[in-house]
């Protein structure tokens, strides 16, 4: 095999792996964001027990490595007699991990709403649904977008951990190729370039959305 053909097959394989990585990240971000929104109920619950349960969940997820979490879920699922492939286990791990991170991002966004805005909303007598949809959600989205984009970028990189539980994605593909070709640095370099391209794309997209959502002089708003 000529070196040119080898490079071509390497890039093709890595590109396919990158697509899987991206898919894993996006799927887990979708489910993780859903989980995070649901977690706001206990996070801001009237009941101390619910708030403590939320904090415990965040502590555990944040305080342990994703790698360990991945292994744990991977071995736990069959033990629970759930015959799922590594992909399902992978998405579950990333969902829990990103869910906890995003929940904290959203919680930060809610806490960032100035007291005056709550006063305003209360003085207008807005019912809870309208308050949430018209005031809280739009403000939280704006306040937490930069941190959220950060988590999105982390999601792409965190997906590489799933190679340990035999999820075939970019890092797994790279290791496969390295075992065959022994071209450690060039293959890893290429894989890193793919990761970078994906993260960079997400970052640009995030900036774009941020600008679109910021009318007038929003950032300079004093209240």
């Amino acid at each position, binding site marked *: 095999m000529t070196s040119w053909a080898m490079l071509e097959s390497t890039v093709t394989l890595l590109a396919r792996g990158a697509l899987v990585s991206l898919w894993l990240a996006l799927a887990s971000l979708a489910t993780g964001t859903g989980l995070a929104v649901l977690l706001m109920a206990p996070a801001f619950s009237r009941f101390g027990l619910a708030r403590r349960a939320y904090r415990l969940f965040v502590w555990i997820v944040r305080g342990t490595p994703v790698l360990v979490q991945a292994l744990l879920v991977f071995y736990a699922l069959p033990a629970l007699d759930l015959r799922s492939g590594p992909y399902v286990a992978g998405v579950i791990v990333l969902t829990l991990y990103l869910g906890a991170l995003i929940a904290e991002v959203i919680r930060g966004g809610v806490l960032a709403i100035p007291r005056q805005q709550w*006063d305003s909303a*209360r*003085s207008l*007598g807005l019912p*809870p649904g309208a308050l949430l949809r*018209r005031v809280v959600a739009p403000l939280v989205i704006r306040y937490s977008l930069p941190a959220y984009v950060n988590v999105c970028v982390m999601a792409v990189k965190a997906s590489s951990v799933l190679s340990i539980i035999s999820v075939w994605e970019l890092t797994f593909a790279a290791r496969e190729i390295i075992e065959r070709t022994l071209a450690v640095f060039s293959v890893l370099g290429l894989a890193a370039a793919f990761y970078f391209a994906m993260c960079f794309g997400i970052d640009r997209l995030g900036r774009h959305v941020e600008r679109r959502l910021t009318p*007038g002089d*929003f950032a300079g*708003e004093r*209240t």
Partner: protein
Amino acid sequence: MIEVRGLRKSFGDVPVLRGIDLAVGDGEVVSLIGRSGCGKTTLLRCLNFLEEYDAGEIRLDGRLLWYREGGSARRPAREAEARRMRQRMGVVFQQYNLFPHMTALDNVALGPRFSQGLSREEAEGLGQRLLQRVGLGQKMRAYPGQLSGGQQQRVAIARALAMRPKVLLLDEITSALDPELVGEVEDVIRSLLSEGIMMVVVTHALAFAREISHRIAYVSDGRIAEIGLPGAVLDAPSDPTLKDFLRRMR
């Protein structure tokens, strides 16, 4: 009319209101003056239940506000009930507190549309009329960040009026403004006087208070230390701390 009886409130161990009694009649404008920290803003916030209070009662047209009638234990009114009560009062805040992600028109139309169930067209029509009335017909699509402080405060007044409130509560509405912008906001309030809307006004602007108020109340140390006609309170005060306060304000 609004009747306040025996209103008490502490922040932790610090008593802020030590028994406020006040009655404001329909169409009456009452200004609350006093030193910073005397409790006048807290009193205003209690009127709209933005602060809970420890004791006492507030009635609007005879109906008890914020807490449930009867029974020995004090129980807050239901949330939905409290929301209905709030709709009868409009509040304008010192820092305008407009929603930064909404245009001026959306800010004004929000309450009528979602609290009072007007259709979108009705709410926006009302919003347009009110913004025109406060002289901002050209700024309906502007966001708060694109408006001057005076313009933002006029939007805030339109937003409060949009609820068609029985009472308007104004909390130092010109204190955060640059001096040259105070006039335009005061003009809007002047224009409301002919409509006979009840107002409770917390202010440091004594000349303005004298001009618009039927009565002025001097709040000191959590109590209303003196209340009466503007001339009597401002020109012939009897309370010694009020004399001192007025001397400093000159």
